[in-house]
């Protein structure tokens, strides 16, 4: 059965979702990622959704679940590359995905992951998931 490939980059895992996912595939990804995080003791997970033309409540919940589960396994998740139309729609749908950190692209996402854990500056508020 088709699966979404998970790549290992140092102590981070990278997932690039290229297809229009059906629910089963999304659930499979959730399971696969959780297993791989545990198996590799990964510290970071990068999910690239720049190719997704749509994120509905199911996929949104899946992203939130992945973030929560990886945190339990002591890894940070960053979702990168959400398209403007998708972001606008997701907000209109009522999902703001609290608890999911985000970045513009893979490069920025990696920067975020490799930065020191405590990145709160002196200003009121910093990029936080």
């Amino acid at each position, binding site marked *: 059965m088709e699966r979404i490939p998970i790549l290992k980059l140092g102590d981070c895992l990278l997932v690039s979702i290229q297809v229009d996912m*059906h629910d*089963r595939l999304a659930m499979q990804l959730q399971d696969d990622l959780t297993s791989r995080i545990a198996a590799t003791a990964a510290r970071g997970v990068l999910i690239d959704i720049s190719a997704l033309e*749509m994120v509905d409540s*199911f996929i949104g919940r899946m992203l939130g679940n992945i973030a929560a589960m990886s945190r339990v396994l002591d890894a940070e998740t960053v979702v990168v590359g959400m398209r403007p139309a998708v972001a606008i729609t997701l907000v*209109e*749908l*009522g999902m703001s995905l609290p608890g999911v950190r985000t970045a513009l692209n893979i490069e920025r996402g990696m920067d975020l992951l490799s930065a020191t854990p405590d990145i709160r500056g002196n200003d009121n508020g910093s990029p936080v998931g």
Partner: protein
Amino acid sequence: MVLLSVERLPLHSDEHMVIVRQAVRNLAVGLGFSLVDQTKVVTAASELARNTIKHGGGGSALLETINDGPRRGLRLTFEDQGPGIADLALAMKDGYTTAGGLGLGLSGAKRLTNEFAIASTPGSGTRVVITKWK
């Protein structure tokens, strides 16, 4: 109201959901919807299609492009013969989730489209009709 095109698609499996999404996307593109509006209507369709499959025990989606004077639109009807929804008002509330996960589907789909109508009788099934105008 003039009907420009009609297509009925089955909704019984996950794969059907993907097919419906793509069909809706194609129709929206064909009607000249903006990218944001395309995304909104496809997402609304995805939510309702999921309800039909997961909560309604399967059913069908009717995709119609319609013409009302000078404006054109996409009208989608999601139908099933499933258990129906006992408390519509509750189901339409944001954040409401059943064991089957109706969740944000209904109220979200309503917010993403121009017209929304739902009819449901416990024991007889559910029908949701959404319309998005160009």
